[in-house]
């Protein structure tokens, strides 16, 4: 099997040989964009006949491995991602780490995601080859198509099969997004299993805003969503806020945000505030997150301008203690309950989820 140019990143030493055996077992580290696109990736790879190996939930061991290998200055999710990639080492033929440069014109993802495949390769000497198609919406459709197609060619020579896999993957992705919008539990939504709903029409409703890889990771956030549900609180995530509402909020801003995932985040958060969708907001940021440090300033100010909804900002890092986190969440929820009890709730407004 010829190495697809620009698709496979091999170790520096083996750069020259130009050939590798056909990859069978493909590892997908369960971090960062995993929470956004895993159903898509999985369907695509499996349809092509590959076996997809996940690294599973984040654990203490994974986090420690990541922290010891990653740069100190990296943000927490990148460290976690390192840990996941290291955990897959030796168990797979190749790692699947796409380089998502931009998923919408005029925007970018975070720089860390742009350099992620190169970073992971540099993390250890014995990293498996990395399959990294580049997706960039500044390029033409065909360029992106080619990049995906090249991945397919690593597994099969049949073009129709690749296209079929692509279509199937896209369907899976849309299904996943729909489930998230309906408020399924993220992990259940990913697997397509029946699971609990985040919002069930309880009295108190809180928006948990933050990147998927922060909010959905049960280890680094210490099961924030679970805990809130345990306290009898309905949860709104950014996926449950309709796209048009987000866009409308974003259009009002004097300067457009150019990070794609930050746009979703800020749009959802501001929609929650201006439409009074929730009683309070918990904004989850990981330490040293670059874009969030900027967008937080923006959200904070716009929130005040729109009449202020209580907001708790949780900055999490690898040293975050469970006790401190719980105390703050409990205090916040108690405060909301008191406010809520005093005011009663005016017209139960537009519900976002079913």
């Amino acid at each position: 099997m010829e190495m697809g140019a620009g698709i496979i990143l091999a170790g520096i030493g083996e750069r020259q040989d130009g050939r590798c055996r056909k990859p069978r077992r493909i590892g997908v580290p369960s971090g960062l964009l995993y929470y956004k696109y895993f159903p898509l990736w999985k369907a695509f790879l499996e349809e092509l006949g590959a076996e997809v190996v996940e690294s599973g939930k984040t654990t203490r061991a994974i986090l420690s491995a990541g922290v010891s290998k990653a740069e100190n200055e990296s943000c927490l999710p990148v460290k976690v991602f390192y840990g996941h990639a290291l955990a897959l080492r030796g168990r797979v033929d190749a790692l699947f780490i796409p380089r998502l440069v931009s998923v919408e014109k005029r925007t970018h993802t975070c720089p860390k995601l742009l350099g992620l495949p190169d970073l992971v390769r540099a993390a250890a000497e014995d990293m498996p080859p990395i399959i990294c198609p580049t997706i960039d919406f500044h390029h033409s459709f065909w360029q992106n198509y080619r990049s995906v197609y090249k991945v397919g060619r690593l597994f099969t020579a049949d073009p129709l099969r690749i296209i079929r896999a692509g279509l199937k993957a896209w369907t899976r992705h849309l299904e996943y997004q729909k489930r998230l919008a309906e408020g399924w539990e993220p992990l259940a939504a990913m697997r397509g299993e029946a699971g609990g709903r985040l919002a069930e029409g309880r009295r108190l409703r809180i928006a948990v805003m933050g990147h998927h890889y922060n909010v959905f990771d049960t280890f680094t956030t210490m099961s924030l969503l679970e805990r809130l549900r345990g306290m009898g609180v309905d949860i709104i995530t950014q996926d449950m806020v309709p796209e048009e509402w987000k866009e409308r909020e974003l259009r009002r801003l004097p300067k457009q945000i150019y990070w794609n995932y930050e746009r979703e985040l800020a749009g959802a958060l501001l929609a929650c505030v201006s439409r009074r969708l929730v009683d309070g907001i918990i904004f989850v940021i990981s330490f040293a997150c670059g874009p969030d440090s900027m967008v937080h300033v923006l959200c904070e100010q716009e929130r005040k301008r729109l009449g202020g909804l209580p907001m708790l900002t949780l900055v999490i890092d690898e040293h975050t203690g469970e006790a401190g986190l719980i105390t703050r969440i409990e205090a916040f929820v108690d405060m909301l309950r008191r406010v809520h009890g005093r005011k009663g709730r005016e017209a139960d407004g537009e519900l976002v989820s079913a």
Partner: protein
Amino acid sequence: MITWPRMGSLDVVLSSVFEEMGVDYVLPPPSSQRTLELGARYAPEFACVPLKTTLGNYIEAIEKGADTMLMIAGKGPCRFGFYAETQRRILEEAGFRAEMVALEFHLDRLGELIRNINRLKQGGSWVRLLRAIRFALHKAFLVDRLEQQALHQRCFDAEKGATSRALERAYELVRRCSDHRGLREVEGQCFELLRSVRRRQLREPPVRIAIVGEFFLVLDPWFNLQVEEQLGDLGAWVERSVYLTDWLRPSGRNPILGHSDRESEEAARPYLSHFVGGEGIHSVGHTVLFKRDGFDGVLHLLPFTCMPETIAKGILPLVSRDQGIPVLSLVIDEQTGKAGVATRLEAFCDLARYRRRQSDRPGPRSAVFSSAAASGF
């Protein structure tokens, strides 16, 4: 009154433009501990340090009476493109009365750019503005060549600090210049000033250290704790990857450094195959290029939490191993102390010198060195 942040010799360039245009401006006081403290007080906790220092600069300039702040905006993915918006919000929130004018050089935003420039030039003609900019760029070009000369000759100083003092005097001469003829005359004087510094005999050729990294940190001597001077005093022949002219000129040809952007992207490709915003890819690429040019070590400067440079920092160990050149990454934030940096620089210079003595590298390296020596000083 217009103001802009301190960044190395940027004030020479911009003050020249506004003087030519007859527009009032205020320079923020030289950056100090207070600047950084003011910035850190208002800025978000893990914003990168350039945001904090420039914010501090603005606050101090507002205290001196500035009411218009100049900044460049961009379209990512580095945070720098969002500085203007964030700082505007922070200052507004803190109750400072000043207007932020963010220049965004992008075709879709041409109308806004023209409107903003119209506001800045306050009725002056476009021809005059372009002339002023051209002259200012000439000044910057001269300043950069002087700085480069200083970097190359500091290690030969018989008396420490003599070159830096000569450079200060040269800056003053350039700053006072107001036309092209004057500038040409001054050019000779400035180089004479630098060349007339008394030199000492070295027993072996000086160790060659290159500085790469985030542009603000590399360009601003206060911010990077004078690493250039420190290295020079330690007896290192220094080169750096960013000069103001190279940064200001959009062509990417980098006349002063001598390596174009494309060259460094090409050099970085085996290690980092996609741009990551800021100078991330160039930090990697220049490290490879400097190795090819025969340097003995590379000093990588990055502000704490800087996204592109953090990526570069993650990849540089691989480059260092693969290319066989020592790389020291220095992370700088508001807590960094000069003594700690000095110790590490000293150890790094020793290491680079030791490694050079160990390897009996023939021809090319020494050839590069002597030719540079012949042309440069």
